[in-house]
């Protein structure tokens, strides 16, 4: 079959840019350079991440663990805020703009701007003599100093990653069969009931991909905490970056990356478990809907 030939470049691409880097990271994570310059297998760097600084240090007070839990917490917070803001936004976009979405286009424009530029823009907004405080004092409110705090980091992440929440939900909502909604109304459901009993459950696949697509970049991000956190606000992404770019310890950097990847995979598996619905358990007929 000729068609298969066209798949090979894609497979090659996937291998070169996804599988191979992962394997390299894994390789560095479980090896070290011995005294004689030889490569040896060891879990030393993986274990380093969990090791106490002094005997008897409580687990959750160990430096790397603290950074990791903080990263997860910030990512969870970002994901939740994105969901709370993103779902209504996606809903409004799907409902009022459907397929001819000018608003969606407006929503896309900031995405074309460089990620760094957008984040720098936030710095000028949030800084002590920035746009935000100028506005606040203009209306007679006390100024606030939130740049280089966790609030600023979450704000920056929400701003940058919100589209990843909105798009998957939007596309599920936009393609939702309107007759199913009418059926619910027909059976006596009011607007609120239609939403909670039909629309929301049916948008779960979009919600799941939205959650994952926001959580993953949030938990690994290092640029946003660098800029908006002022470098004082260290997340696990910053730790990894430091190991590679400043310390030059590729083995420890890779070990941390591997731990983070494992953690993300674990969480995704957990989400999948929650989402597990009894589809097509005892029948053939996938696609024989009508």
């Amino acid at each position, binding site marked *: 079959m000729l068609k298969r030939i066209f798949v090979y470049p894609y497979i090659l691409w996937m291998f070169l840019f996804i599988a191979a880097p992962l394997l390299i990271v894994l390789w560095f994570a479980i090896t070290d350079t011995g005294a004689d310059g030889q490569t040896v297998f060891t879990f030393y760097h993986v274990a380093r991440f969990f090791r106490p600084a002094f005997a008897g240090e409580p687990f959750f007070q160990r430096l790397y663990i603290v950074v990791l839990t903080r990263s997860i917490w910030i990512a969870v917070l970002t994901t939740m805020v994105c969901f709370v803001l993103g779902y209504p936004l996606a809903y409004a976009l799907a409902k009022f703009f459907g397929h001819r979405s000018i608003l969606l286009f407006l929503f896309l424009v900031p995405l074309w701007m460089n990620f760094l530029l957008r984040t720098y823009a936030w710095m000028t907004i949030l800084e002590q003599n920035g746009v935000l405080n100028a506005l606040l004092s203009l209306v007679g409110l006390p100024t606030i100093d939130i740049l280089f705090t966790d609030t600023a980091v979450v704000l920056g992440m929400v701003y940058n990653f919100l589209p990843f929440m909105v798009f998957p939900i939007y596309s599920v909502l936009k393609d939702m069969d309107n007759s199913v909604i*009418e059926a619910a*109304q*027909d059976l006596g459901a*009011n607007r609120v009931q239609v939403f909670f009993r039909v629309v929301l459950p*049916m948008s*779960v696949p979009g919600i799941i991909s939205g959650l994952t697509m926001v959580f993953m970049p949030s938990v690994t991000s290092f640029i946003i905490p660098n800029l908006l956190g002022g470098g004082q606000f260290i997340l696990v992404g910053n730790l990894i970056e430091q190991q590679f770019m400043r310390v030059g310890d590729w083995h420890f950097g890779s070990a941390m990356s591997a731990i983070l990847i494992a953690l993300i995979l674990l969480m995704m598996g957990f989400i999948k478990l929650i989402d597990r619905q*009894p589809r097509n*358990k*005892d029948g053939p007929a996938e696609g024989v809907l009508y």
Partner: protein
Amino acid sequence: MNHFIDLVGVTKTFGRKTVLSNINLYIDRNEFVTLLGPSGCGKTTTLRIIGGFEKPTAGALLFNGEDAISLPPNKRKVNTVFQKYALFPNMNVFDNIAFGLRLKKTDAKTIAEKVDAMLALVNLAGFQKRTIQSLSGGQQQRVAIARAVVNDPEVLLLDEPLGALDLKLRLEMQVELKNIQKELGITFVYVTHDQGEALSMSDTVVVMDAGQIQQIGKPEDIYNEPKNAFVAKFIGESNILEGIMHSDYHVEFAQVGFACIDKGFGPGEAVDVVVRPEDVAITPLEEGTLRGKVRHITFKGVHYEMRVEANGFAWKVHNTVQFPVGTEVGLSIAPHLIHVMKKSGEPGC
């Protein structure tokens, strides 16, 4: 007396397009009414107006004499079986059927009983836990009916519910639906473009074309006394000819004068004449009002369908006796089997 459902002068336009114009129709309790017409003639729109999913542009909709237009769909004692079933894909069969009852805060035990009884009624006992995706078209269809009927609606709206099924299943379901309607004493408003289905199931047939009602009547009357050429053509097969009414009881078509039982037309008025193929009698050549030659013959099971060319018209003739191609035959038509109707500019849809 107030009618159960009353559509008075209902008109519906979408933008500049008039989809329904001046629909007047009343429906009585326990009646099985069928809206019949070609695709795009406005059947679904009519049904959606009754269900509350569209508002008429003009005209009134009354339930028991009271305005219903302002009632949202969830406040109407009407349930709908949608054209493509519209089952909830994320729920199993039980939850689909229980949906309406749960909204009414029915207790769990009653719900279980009612759902089970409903599944038995539609011949799906034991299907409670099945997913929607694992059901065949016919089974989904029956779940959709059960989901609507379990709420004890006063009116059930059905939009081409059997459209997606194969012929055998469709015939079975026709009988099943009719039984359900009789058993539960619910008013059915049924939409179809299949004339056979309409004639065999309904108490009243409403023939529609191009957003207008062409004729309302009992199936027999619609078939035997079509009001215009459109109805005649749409319901069953027919020979439709242009004719001239010379005087009461005398009509000329195919260049021959015929006796008929119609009167009240102006002298010399141009009319449409409809003759059903089974009403054209084949006679010995000399006895026929018309003389022609058999051009074509097809066996149709019970009868033969022939094309007989006579006086420049290819007559559709049904007969249980076959006359081979080339046979010269006489044709005659009894006066009461000639349907003379006012000319209607053939409305196309």
